């Protein structure tokens, strides 16, 4: 099976300053992957390499069977949907609906199919009511959802999202989670750059941990969050649920709310709860 994304010994430097060094990994269809690491670890650089805005200084980035060196970003957009950290800069149309429709239309999707995709993306993120509004009339969190809807509407084989939940409230986070789960179930691979380890623990499976431009870990998130002090050396801290599970020595090191709750209930049944 061809990997959806494969990085082979990839390095990148901004002039003299190395941002990524010898990074290799491959993602399979439908995988839900978190890309985590401290500020300046190289996460956003990696994203720019995947969408073709940067070309590797050494090594190869393959999107399916396309080498990003020989493809322009607009060609890669047929396979990769992206949400940048400052999503505002991704919005330019006069209405949310037009903005979301831009990607499918620009990548040659028929008008009928495009309209259906736009409707699905708007519904998934609860944006139907503001579809006719100018994106810049919306508060920043909704603008981010609008930009995300544009990426979803591409229905690509790979979604690369930079901090999709930052600044979102609980309901919006739940919508994003459900929309991403829906895409993953349809076969889209998710690569989510996030500092929100709680969101990652709850909704993603595999963790790629970057430290100072190198891939320090590639492991299931439940193993990654159990790294403790090693995690802190790389700017991360286990989220509260993971800390609670560790403190109570819950069997199986659960990291998702439902599993932690089940463990908590059994501890409570043994102890007296005040």
């Amino acid at each position, binding site marked *: 099976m061809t990997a959806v994304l494969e990085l082979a010994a990839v390095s990148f430097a901004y002039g003299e300053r190395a941002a990524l060094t010898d990074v290799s990994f491959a993602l399979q269809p439908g995988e839900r992957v978190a890309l985590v690491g401290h500020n300046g670890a190289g996460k956003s650089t990696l994203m720019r390499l995947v969408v073709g805005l940067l070309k590797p200084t050494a090594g190869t980035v393959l999107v399916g069977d396309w080498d990003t060196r020989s493809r322009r970003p607009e060609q890669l957009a047929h396979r990769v949907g992206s949400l940048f950290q400052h999503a505002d800069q991704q919005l330019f149309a006069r209405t949310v609906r037009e903005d979301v429709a831009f990607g499918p239309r620009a990548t040659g999707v028929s008008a009928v199919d495009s309209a259906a995709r736009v409707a699905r993306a708007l519904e998934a993120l609860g944006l139907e009511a503001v579809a006719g509004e100018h994106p810049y009339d919306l508060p920043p969190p909704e603008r981010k959802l609008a930009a995300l809807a544009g990426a979803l509407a591409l229905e690509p084989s790979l979604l690369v999202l930079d901090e999709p939940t930052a600044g979102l409230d609980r309901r919006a986070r739940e919508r994003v989670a459900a929309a991403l789960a829906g895409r993953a179930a349809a076969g889209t691979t998710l690569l989510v750059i996030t500092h929100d380890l709680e969101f990652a623990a709850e909704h993603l499976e595999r963790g790629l941990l970057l430290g100072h431009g190198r891939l320090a870990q590639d492991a299931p998130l439940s193993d990654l969050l159990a790294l403790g002090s090693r995690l802190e050396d790389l700017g991360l801290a286990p989220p509260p649920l993971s800390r609670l599970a560790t403190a109570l020595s819950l069997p199986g090191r659960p990291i998702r*709310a439902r599993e932690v709750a089940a463990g908590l209930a059994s501890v409570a049944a043994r102890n007296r709860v005040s």
Partner: protein
Amino acid sequence: MTAPLALRSVTYRYPASRSPAVRDLTLELRRGEVLGVIGSVGAGASTLLLLAGDLAPRVTGGELTGTVERAGRAALLLPTPWTQLSGMAFTVFDEVAFGPANLGWPRERISASVERALTRVDVPHLRERDPTSLSGGELQRVILAGILAMEPDVLLLDEPTAELDPLAARRIWELIRTLAQDGMAVVVATSDLDALCDTADRIAWLEQGAVRALGATREVLVEPALTADTAPGSTSIAAVWRLAGLPEPPPLTVAQALERLR
């Protein structure tokens, strides 16, 4: 003693908007306290900060009724810090010095204040860097340094850790506590209720522009109504406690949960 910030019966409407973003809001900030502002998108938290920071309606336009009183200087960190760069500085040092220089301070006071601010947000090593070359997390801290360098009496923060990795975020929350201990009054709007729970003295929960609840952090965050579909929720520990069907009120932190299970 005069409150560093007081909003009295404030109602505010953005230009070209029919309904007010903030309604009949009354709030008095105490010196040395951290007030957390929570609410779902559109609840009015960011607007409250723009009003407190004298950007609304002075810069944004719109209509204000009621009064906003400030004793001293208020400074605001926007949730979009990259829009707060002066565009006038080639180094981080000059960027952070931009605010103090515009206050007309003598050179020695400016550089002392800039150095202190850079150290406080853990970025003295970025001193000579071009501000436009910074990562998102570095930039957020540099902009915060620029604000602290102006030595405000009231610090207004809108999602101050959105761009930061978890450890850098933790340091900012600790810094906020330190600043409050030094006497600064801090208003912080955030969706990170886990962090707020350890940082804020009081919490204002906004809903549709009005105060739904205002009180001590540990009282507001255990409100069952916070779990309603349209409400901001509570801490992740409170949520999992409730999911497990354990007795109310829920603990808010890991330490409190362990205490309850003992």
